[in-house]
């Protein structure tokens, strides 16, 4: 997966008057990877995307995309980028087809641009000759997606692409990301919806107030915050689970509404733990290894600070 670096931001800073869009952002997106920018509203995700395409120039710091400074040769960079912004940015008075044709012509694709194929990929082909003003939010996002991939971009930038979408449209977005990554394209996606980033991200960059808090593959980040194996256990009588707290190899024990969470020094302890509980007459109903989600990681970073 990891190859050349397609996107490189080094200490990028961008202010808008008194408002700081990016305070000090550094990130790298390797070729063929999916990088997810996580962060609350106002954390600088959109400004980061705009800086990557060269639509915004950083006040200080360095930006390099495809080995080029987008401020020096923005046209070369933007020709290879596809962007889906938070709002679909479509021309409501034009038909879907005219919107796609406009993009095809701006990207110098000529008359044989795959307009119908691109629309069909997102199930919007039948509405292509209707005015975009009459489209639903989901249809607009699908059209914006079709427009973003029309020129087969090497770098796809998605800014909150699933916000306000129905499950079907959200699924279309996530499937696109998967397919793009499988085709060796580079994807950078901004979101504050952690569930949708789950399983997609090769790399997570967590932003807060225009800074990168932490960055890395999700597994590595999880290991940083949860270095020990964690198991979720439950029993018919949950009070009986308290016996786990004093067993060998148990580093932490917490009973909660869903049973108990147990941190062990080694995953090999699990069979011993089950045997010991059974010997004490505890009737277990669930023993599952727990892999913390991005959501848990996100809150762990915010609560426990950067590690």
């Amino acid at each position, binding site marked *: 997966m990891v190859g050349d670096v397609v996107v490189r931001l080094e200490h990028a800073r961008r202010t*808008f*008057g008194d408002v700081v*869009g990016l305070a000090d952002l550094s990130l790298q997106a390797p070729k063929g990877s999916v990088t997810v920018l996580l962060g609350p509203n106002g954390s600088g995700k959109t400004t980061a995307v*705009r800086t990557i*395409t*060269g*639509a*915004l*120039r950083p006040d200080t710091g360095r930006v390099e995309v495809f080995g080029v400074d987008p401020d020096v040769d*923005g*046209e070369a960079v*933007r*020709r290879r*980028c596809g*962007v889906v*912004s938070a*709002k*679909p*940015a*479509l*021309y*409501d*008075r*034009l038909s879907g087809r*005219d919107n796609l044709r*406009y*993009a095809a*012509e*701006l*990207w*110098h*694709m*000529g*008359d*044989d641009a795959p307009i119908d194929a691109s629309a069909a990929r997102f199930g919007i082909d039948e509405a292509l000759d209707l*005015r975009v003003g009459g489209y639903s939010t989901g249809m607009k996002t699908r059209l914006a997606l079709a*427009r973003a991939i029309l020129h087969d971009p090497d770098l796809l*930038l998605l800014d909150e692409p699933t916000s306000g979408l129905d499950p079907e449209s959200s699924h279309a977005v996530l499937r696109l990301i998967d397919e793009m990554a499988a085709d060796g394209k580079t994807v950078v996606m901004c979101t504050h919806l952690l569930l949708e980033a789950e399983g997609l991200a090769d790399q997570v960059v967590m932003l807060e107030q225009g800074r990168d808090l932490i960055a890395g593959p999700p597994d590595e980040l999880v290991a940083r915050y949860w270095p020990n194996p964690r198991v979720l256990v439950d029993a018919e009588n949950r009070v009986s689970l308290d016996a786990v707290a004093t067993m060998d190899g148990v580093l932490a024990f917490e009973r909660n509404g869903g049973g108990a969470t147990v941190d062990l020094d080694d995953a090999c302890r699990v069979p011993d733990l089950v045997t010991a509980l059974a010997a004490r007459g505890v009737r277990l109903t669930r023993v599952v290894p727990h892999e913390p989600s991005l959501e848990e990681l996100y809150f762990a970073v915010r609560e426990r600070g950067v590690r």
Partner: protein
Amino acid sequence: MRTRSRTWVIARTELRQLRQSPDFWLPMLILAGLFFVVIPTFLLFAITHVHNDAVVAKVATTLDVLPARAKAAIHGFSPAGRTSYALAVYLFAPLAVIVPMTISTAVGANALVGEKERGTGEFLAHSPATEREIYLGKLIASLLPGYLTTIIGFGIYALIVNLIVGPQVGGWFFPTSDWWVLMFWVVPPFLAITLCVVLRLSARVRSGAAAQQASGLVTLPLIIVAYAQSSGVLLGAGSTAIALGAVAWMAAVWGLWRGSGAVTRARLLGVEGPAL
């Protein structure tokens, strides 16, 4: 594979959007119809056919403001004929200025701020189009509707004038040489200068309403200057008009060359301050 200039692509898409908006072009069409057809037809027909000497005399007194050269050029077999000739040639001249400026200014004022307001500026900002291509595309799209309406309206106006006034002055006489100069030498650069300023405003303000208001302030003095010149009041006509047109062309070229600096991607995204 055939590719088109991005400037032309942007202009054509802007024009296509205008065409799809009858709420925009219908009032413009009515405006052009009023100025080029309804008002001239009504007035000229009334003067040449009603034979009311008091009315003709009253209208004729308004022609005293014309310079001597203009007065000397007035033809006609009768007071009504001379009055209608003067009206057709001199007093309706501002129509040729007001119509294109009104239409083009309305289009131009929204051209860039509209992208910002609708959020489509984000698309353009991330596109490979350069700032100059965006600027020129918007300029062409603003210029064409006004100028084409004027040229077509001018043709219809010429026909009406010749049909109504012609028999009173010895045949078809319109357009006169001054009108040719006005339409094809004076009006285009004035229009371009106005649009350069209007597009600069459109790129910098935060709303379409603000752009329209600011554009009105710019357009009004230019309409007055162009009108004064077109009627021969300001600097006389003939060679002076050609000289004024030449100066206006130079100013227009300079404005066009400088104007693209007003378009920045940050402004298309709506994140740059409104400082003028």
